[in-house]
């Protein structure tokens, strides 16, 4: 008996062609675990939204066909009636929490459907025990890491005891160890007999968990495999579908987790970093702040007495969440005033604010760093001296010429990222920093970013990329820099695939 039935679905969002669906038929049996894969914009998220009713009740558009979920006709069912039946874990941990504290978040769903407080407490205790959440109870959501947030999101969905659980790119912002925990949660749900639908780009962590794999292409179901067929696809077949790898090499896993003996290789043509110490726990005298030193030891969140960064290369910055990768990037480009590190390049020493001119960081959420009303003025804003010709060159190089006069906020995510890269180029920075540029990107977009990074390095800049993406590292990094507890563990040359 199918618990989810999509019959002859045609759907188009209001005012957008992206993510529309075309003649989709899909039946999912009770207790099955189904993976939806395919490029961005191929309609994976739209399928998820059809099953949880957000289409057509929240995201409006033209919908034809029939959707039935656990006996409910979705078109005629109010969203809140589905709350105990379908649960959804969303992609972005930042925007799926209603409460500010973790406890409140877990009980939020049960409270909404008016359950008895006693029953809610039992459910909460069960979920907390099941997912091992004791240590993150009673905390503010804003102090949690991405992985911890995603576990709370899973718990808050599980507390409603839904039979159907949907996950929309749940691993996008997670590091390797957090993905392993997420996998554990999915396996537990599977064992409990829940029906699970996962839309995802990263495939390796799901390979033994899924019963069926649906491959989507421009709004259609283009291919279907059983779990076993999918796992036995060879590397070339996977590549031909523009999917990310199903099997991760041992080597890559060790690399991404930073499991290497400490060894820092010597670099000839390098930019030198000196005295990069920083801690979030401020040591203050009454008024003046105390300078951080190497002797502060464990207090430090970043502890790098000296480091040589190769010029004109792409350097992958790896290590688990919360190990100081972002802190390193922020200190390097001078955003943390309390870090008094110096950068020596070509015999010139840059201190304090001067570092801001030497470095440019492309942030994970590029929406935060686009300010003007057209792509062109965005690039010109970064230039020390306005030069339209160079601006046009950059836009050409990044394939943005046709969007010259478009408002940056009207572009797609990938295009926005390229605008940010164009303005990084225009700033003439010698060190370009990227914070998780490929989280949540599909294979072909990841490849494009990796090509761009190599181009940037070829033009002479040092490119430092903080990432959890093993494929990005094997595609484009010349060196891998491993951090652990704020210290450099290793810097080594990387064997690229191309």
């Amino acid at each position, binding site marked *: 008996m199918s618990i989810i039935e999509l019959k002859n679905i045609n759907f188009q969002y209001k005012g957008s062609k992206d993510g529309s669906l075309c003649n989709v038929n899909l039946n999912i049996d009770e207790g099955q675990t189904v993976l939806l894969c395919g490029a961005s914009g191929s309609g994976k998220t739209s399928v998820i939204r059809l099953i949880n009713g957000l289409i057509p009740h929240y995201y409006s558009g033209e919908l034809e066909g029939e959707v039935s979920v656990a006996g409910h006709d979705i078109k005629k069912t109010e969203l809140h009636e589905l709350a105990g039946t379908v649960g959804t874990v969303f992609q972005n941990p930042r925007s799926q929490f*209603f409460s500010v504290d973790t406890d409140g978040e877990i009980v939020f769903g049960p409270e909404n459907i008016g359950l008895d407080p006693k029953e809610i407490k039992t459910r909460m205790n069960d979920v907390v025990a099941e997912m091992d959440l004791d240590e993150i109870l009673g905390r503010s959501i804003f102090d949690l890491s991405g992985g911890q947030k995603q576990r709370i999101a899973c718990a808050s969905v599980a507390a409603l005891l839904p039979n159907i659980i949907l996950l929309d790119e749940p691993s996008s912002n997670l590091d390797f160890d957090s993905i392993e925990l997420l996998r554990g949660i999915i396996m537990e749900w599977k064992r409990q007999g829940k029906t699970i639908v996962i839309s995802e780009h990263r495939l390796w962590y799901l390979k033994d968990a899924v019963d069926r794999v649906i491959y989507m292409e421009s709004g259609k179901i283009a291919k279907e495999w059983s779990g076993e067929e999918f796992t036995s696809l060879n590397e070339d077949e996977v590549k031909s579908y523009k999917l990310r790898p199903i099997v991760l090499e041992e080597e890559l896993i060790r690399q991404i987790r930073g499991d290497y003996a400490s060894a820092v290789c010597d670099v000839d043509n390098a930019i030198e970093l000196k005295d990069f110490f920083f801690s979030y726990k401020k040591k203050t005298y009454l008024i003046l702040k105390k300078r951080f030193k190497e002797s502060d030891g464990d207090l430090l969140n970043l502890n790098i007495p000296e480091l040589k960064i190769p010029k004109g290369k792409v350097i992958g910055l790896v290590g688990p969440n919360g190990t100081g990768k972002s802190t390193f990037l922020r200190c390097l480009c001078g955003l943390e005033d309390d870090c008094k590190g110096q950068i020596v390049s070509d015999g010139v020493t840059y201190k304090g604010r001067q570092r801001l001119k030497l470095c440019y960081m492309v*942030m994970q959420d590029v929406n935060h760093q686009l300010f003007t009303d057209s792509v062109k003025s965005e690039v010109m804003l970064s230039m020390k001296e306005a030069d339209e010709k160079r601006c046009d060159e950059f836009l050409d190089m990044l394939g943005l010429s046709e969007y010259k006069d478009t408002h940056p906020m009207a572009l797609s995510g990938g295009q926005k990222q390229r605008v940010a890269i164009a303005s990084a180029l225009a700033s003439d920075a010698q060190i370009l920093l990227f914070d998780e540029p490929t989280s949540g990107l599909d294979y072909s977009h990841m490849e494009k970013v990796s090509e761009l990074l190599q181009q940037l390095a070829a033009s002479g800049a040092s490119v430092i990329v903080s990432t959890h993406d093993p494929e990005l590292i094997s595609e484009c990094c010349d060196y891998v820099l491993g951090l652990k507890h704020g210290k450099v563990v290793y810097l080594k040359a990387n064997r690229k695939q191309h």
Partner: protein
Amino acid sequence: MKLDPRTKLFMIFVVSLIVMMSATTPILWAIRLSITLIPILLLIIEKKYAAALRFLLAYGTALVLTFFFLSTESEGIFSSLLIGYCGIVVQFMPALITAWYVVRTTKIGEFMSCMQKMHVPDGIAVSLAVVMRFFPTIKEEYSSINDAMRMRGVMLGGGNVLKMVEFRMIPLLFSCVNIGEELSAAAITRGLGGEVKRSSVVELKLGAADFFLMAFLAAATVLFVVLKYFV
């Protein structure tokens, strides 16, 4: 010490009321000052020393300036600016700091439970809760945007005040709208907005501290109004 959200709401009400009515005699000033001290004491109890100290400094300076250096005869642009500044600090800061204290120390669950006890409709309670939930988000977004501006060297908007505001507000509005949209989608899928009356795990109980504080606040209000209007 844990105060009941109802006490906190009452406190916001009383502090705003008393601070907004002008104090004319020394005894009225005394009441007003003691009411202003309550949120400061509470902040110190919550170990928010920096906030308490900063508020105390700003408020104290404004008071001293108003009493000793400014009078109705003050003239000139500088002193009128100063009068404006002091007026704003003395009139609004106490209410603001109380509200800040309440937002910082009240969990959303407690707040919802309190609203239910007071029989406020779910719709209003949920909207207010979302506003509370959004403060830290706005702060987080704002600081990322600020970082981006520093990095691109446009902190001062190229010397253009309008640009300075525009560069901050436009990305902030875009991300808040996006987050708000995703947030409500996530909340709806977990049953928010149903016809069922919400329940609440948080059990609220008024304690001794609550009764004491409420009695004190009520007495101060009555005393203030009587002394001001009927004596």
